[in-house]
């Protein structure tokens, strides 16, 4: 490990994983944490059935407002989604604010309004919170931490350890929308003005899926930082191979264009309204139909499958008939030079 924290430690790629594995998971080790899922799952004395899910996430996005969302909407959707992908019904959220001296109150009001609307739409309540103000320069405007609890019904146990060769992998729509929209806005790049973040709460979509094909969903994950490829590699770490078809992965034309110009790969770009789902082969048609019937899943597609071949690795089949390994991102994705 390098001696100081680098920005790459927060990119969701290999350095982030190393930090979690070698420091946090090691020092905090316990059976619940050791699962390293999107949310922690545990039973509580007195709970008649099922388990509780608990998750937390901090939001430091710049700019605070971007096409398709803002830091407040993101802070609610992100935590709701982290609960939903472990099969939980999100119930209550906390909100912690770190505010920089000098932040216009109007900005904070806008963000809080957005959080309230998003929470209401997702059917969750923000039930506790905290506020800290730091000196100018000690934070970048506004940081938000949200934590959430949800209830996982008895019998639902979604984990990459469930993956079996032949399982199909689906996604509910196009990849890279959020990452590229935020990047264009942040860097003031003008040529991709039609890009919009996919930021959305997925609990309703996921609940519909779990209801339609009970027992057929192996695991789910929201491919945020590090994008689709990082999620697939995390799954492959469970000891299976994964093969995806490049042409089957939905990528919006504008996103593709911006990525081609900058030399970036949309498969590694962040998403905030996407879920990757692995289902048993028998259930794939119905799962796809259920996703496509929901407004947040209209462009859902089957993108690949779990294989017995090449365990631990993710293979991309290209349109030219070649195939290559797609590994975890090492640092932040950087635009090409010439």
């Amino acid at each position: 490990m390098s001696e100081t924290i680098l920005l790459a430690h927060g990119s969701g790629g290999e350095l982030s994983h190393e930090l979690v594995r070698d420091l946090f998971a090691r020092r905090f080790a316990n059976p619940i944490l050791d699962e390293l899922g999107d949310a922690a799952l545990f039973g509580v004395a007195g709970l008649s059935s099922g388990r509780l899910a608990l998750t937390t996430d901090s939001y430091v996005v710049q700019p605070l407002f971007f096409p398709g969302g803002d830091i407040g909407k993101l802070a609610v959707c992100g935590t709701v989604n982290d609960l939903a992908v472990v099969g939980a019904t999100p119930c209550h959220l906390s909100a912690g604010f770190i505010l920089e001296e000098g932040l216009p109150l109007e900005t904070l009001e806008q963000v809080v309004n957005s959080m309230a609307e998003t929470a209401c739409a997702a059917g969750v309540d923000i039930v506790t919170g905290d506020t800290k103000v730091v000196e100018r320069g000690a934070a970048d405007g506004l940081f938000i931490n949200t934590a959430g609890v949800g209830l996982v019904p008895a019998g639902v146990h979604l984990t990459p350890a469930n993956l079996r060769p032949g399982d199909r992998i689906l996604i509910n729509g196009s990849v890279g929308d959020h990452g590229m929209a935020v990047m264009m806005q942040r860097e003031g790049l003008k040529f991709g003005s039609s890009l919009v973040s996919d930021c959305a709460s997925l609990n309703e979509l996921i609940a519909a899926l779990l209801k339609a094909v009970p027992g057929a969903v192996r695991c789910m994950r929201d491919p945020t930082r590090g994008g689709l490829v990082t999620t697939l590699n995390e799954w492959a770490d469970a000891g299976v191979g994964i093969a995806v078809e490049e042409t089957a992965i939905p990528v919006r034309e504008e996103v593709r264009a911006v990525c081609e110009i900058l030399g970036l790969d949309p498969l590694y770009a962040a998403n905030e309204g996407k879920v990757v789902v692995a289902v048993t082969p028998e259930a794939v048609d119905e799962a796809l139909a259920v996703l496509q019937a929901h407004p947040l899943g209209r462009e859902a597609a089957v993108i690949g499958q779990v294989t017995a071949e090449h365990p631990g690795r993710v293979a991309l089949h290209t349109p030219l008939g070649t195939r290559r390994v797609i590994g975890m991102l090492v640092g932040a994705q950087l635009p090409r030079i010439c």
Partner: protein
Amino acid sequence: MKYIDEFREPELARRLVSQIRAQATCPVRLMEFCGGHTHAIFRFGLRQMLASHVDMRSGPGCPVCVTSATDLDRAIALSEVPDAILTTFGDMVRVPGSRGTLQEAQARGSDVRVVYSALDALEIARRNPQRPVVFLGIGFETTAPTVAATLVQAEEEGLSNFFVFSAHKLTPPAVRAILEVGEVALDGVIGPGHVSAVIGSAAWQFLPQRYGIACAIAGFEPLDILSAVAALVRCVVEGQPSVANTYGRGVRSGGNPAAQAMMKRVFQVGPAEWRGFGVIPESGFNLREAFAHRDAAQRFPVAVEPVEEPAGCRCGEVLRGVVEPPDCSLFRRICSPRNPVGPCMVSAEGACAAYFQYAEEMT
């Protein structure tokens, strides 16, 4: 997507590959000069498609990779000038010099910012009039014109806090250096598409004329590259080396006169130190006298020691096409994108990184 999909058409690609395989009656060894080509060749799996008929070697056309460790140490020292903001292109911040990387300098307190264009650096200079803003200019004839235009703009605006540290390099001298040394026997060269859009396809005539080697200028899509390979294989088989331009939609014989004029106005050609080559005469761009007051190297003289390459690192030979990345004993064992020993492992356009990322065995 227009201008992309038609150059990735699978059926046409397969047809070109069978044509190449049929024509290449003996193994043909080609070098792609440009790091962008290296990346595309791996990304689309073209090596797999051409295996056993065409031996593809990567050349020195990765701007990050050929930037000397001494220049990098100088850039790190420039980032430590009080109040300075050092700006450069993305991959550059991860390349190890003898004193670590710019990224680590940033973590130690230097203000290092990644920009997409020299014009972004100029904007930073406008917003921070009290602070010297240094742009570390790397790259070839592709990036040099925009840096030149940015310097002209800075002059017109009278922005006195904008400086450039020019580590720009010229491509034809590097190809010439490889051929002069003669370490690797090449049958043909895939000419860099974007560089040639600026300098023109005619700039490569010295390859057939002086060295008897064919050159085909290529774009960056699979069909572009396969067309260039097909043209080169044809030249080799027929024994008639020439310069083919298979990137007609981007490259003209005389190149881009406006860009050339801009480079000429701001830069003068001089010797430059290349990683893996040492000093190549007439291969670098230095600021002309009229822009000397914006030359970061002159404005902020920083002392750096000459740097030796890390022990065991064979990036130099990789850049000259003499060995392939897996031939290096550090490759994958010690040197990885996580822990790059040499520059070719850092940049996405570097041969080692491309090998590491894409050529991993599927077992």
